Structure formats: structure tokens, C-alpha cells
């Protein structure tokens, strides 16, 4: 029941953002408000089992992502270290495009994350940051196989490949 309500609420907020500035009733027109309520109820009924699927054993609390502290940490992470390393990664790619110096390879890292959400977040962060691209994931223990464009060490620690990201992701998603 709580999962259904949460999914409906998120769908309704998204609908309201999408139709902002549409009318005279505040920022929205009355028709949009009613249509959004009906549509988000339907979306919530259809999608809540997918949105809050039972994750693996050892899962603490599936509603942990609604904790506002995690939202704030996520925003800080996005604007601070994530954006910085994304900028760095682009100059890295530019350097490698121009000079052609590459030393590629696929390495394995064990970040030690347990939840699906955390692994997804880390894999996407790795793809967008310097010289690394996540290729595959070991679903049993959460190990990531990472294509590294400039292999310095065939058996790296997570910190060598992706810096402080596992710690940030642990604070946000676990």
C-alpha cells in the first residue's frame, strides 16, 4: 500500500513539473491537475511492483531513498565530485583522441556494495568518469568489470579506478 502511494506521488509530482506554466489556476490549469491525478493513480497501480521490487536478501529498507538527507548528499555529489571528474574525463578523452596513447584492458573491481540501486549508481558514475566504462556486473557479489583505457595496474583497488565514488554511493544508496 505504501509502495503504491509513493509511486503515485512521484508520478504526480513529475506530471506537475512537466505541465508547469500551463494555466491560470496557480501555475497549473484545473484540467491538468485532475488529469494528472487520474493518470498518476493509473501509473502507480501499474508500476508499484516494478518500482519497489523486492531486492536481494540483506536489504534494509526499500523506502530509504525518500530520506531527505540522502537527497541533499546526492545533490552535493552531483554538483561537486561528479561534475568535476566528468570535466576531467572529457579533457582526458580529448588528450587520448589527439595523441592516440591508449593501453586498454578489462579489470575487475570489488566495491563491496550490496544493493541494486548502489551498484547501478556506481556503474553509471564509472561510465561517465575518466577513462573507465563498466562492461559487466557479477550479480552474486556485486563485482564490476570495467573497461579501463589506460591500465596502470591489472589488479586495481576500487580507489585506483574510481576515486572516492564508492564511499559517496554508500552514503547515498545503502
Amino acid at each position, binding site marked *: 500500500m505504501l509502495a503504491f502511494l509513493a509511486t503515485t506521488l512521484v508520478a504526480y509530482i513529475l506530471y506537475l513539473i*512537466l505541465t508547469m*506554466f500551463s494555466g491560470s489556476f496557480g501555475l497549473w490549469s484545473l484540467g491538468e491537475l485532475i488529469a494528472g491525478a487520474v493518470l498518476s493513480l493509473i501509473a502507480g497501480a501499474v508500476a508499484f511492483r516494478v518500482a519497489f521490487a523486492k531486492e536481494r536478501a540483506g536489504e534494509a529498507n526499500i523506502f530509504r531513498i525518500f530520506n531527505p538527507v540522502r537527497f541533499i548528499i546526492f545533490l552535493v555529489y552531483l554538483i561537486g565530485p561528479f561534475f568535476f571528474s566528468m570535466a576531467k574525463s572529457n579533457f582526458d578523452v580529448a588528450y587520448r583522441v589527439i595523441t592516440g596513447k591508449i*593501453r586498454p*584492458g578489462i*579489470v575487475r573491481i570489488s566495491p563491496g556494495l550490496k544493493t541494486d540501486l548502489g551498484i547501478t549508481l556506481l556503474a553509471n558514475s564509472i561510465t561517465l568518469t575518466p577513462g573507465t*566504462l*563498466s562492461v559487466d556486473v557479477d550479480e552474486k557479489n556485486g563485482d564490476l*568489470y570495467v573497461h579501463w583505457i589506460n591500465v596502470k595496474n591489472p589488479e586495481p583497488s576500487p580507489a585506483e579506478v574510481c576515486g572516492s565514488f564508492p564511499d559517496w554511493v554508500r552514503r547515498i544508496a545503502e
Partner: protein
Amino acid sequence: MNILIYVLFGIGLTFNGLGAIALLRFPDVYTRLHGATKATTFGSIFTTAAVIAYGFARGGPAFDTLAIHAIIALIALLITNPTGAHAIARAAYRSGVKPKYAVVDKLEEKK
């Protein structure tokens, strides 16, 4: 304001162009994906930021809506671009494309 928009477009187009050059220069599918995901995502952030700045600068309901929709497109882009790259890389590996010039391949040793 116009200058800011031009600068944002300039940065974005530079990086998007770099992504296109990366596609031509690199030797195999994995290294090409590096260029295709990182450079195009970063470039698209700046081009979208230019659209958002333009929308809020012009004002009025139509242009505010444009800016809001550009923000939502940016969020969707940030989520789907790395996910798509991961899917392509994984599919390529599963269908037997080996990384060229690789010094180490742990995924090979697993199987």
C-alpha cells in the same frame, strides 16, 4: 545574456565534435564508447544549459515551459546515456567482440 548562451553552445559543440572525432580515431568498440558517452553527455549538458538559459531569459509561459522540459530532458539524458553505453558494451562482449590491444582481460578469465 546572449554572450552567455553563445559561450555555452560553443563549449557544448566543441565536446560533441570531440566525441565524433573519438568515434573515428579509436580502434575498437569499447574505446569508441568511451568517446561516444563521455564527450556527448558533457557536450549535451552545455547545449541543454544554453536552451534553459534562453528559455528563462525570454520569459513568458511558452518559453518557461521550454526551459522546464529541457531540464527534464537533461535528467533523462544523464540517466539513460551511461545505461545505454553499458548495455552496448555488455552486448558486444557477449556476442564475442574482444577488446583490441588489451593488456589485461579479467572477463575472459572468468569464463
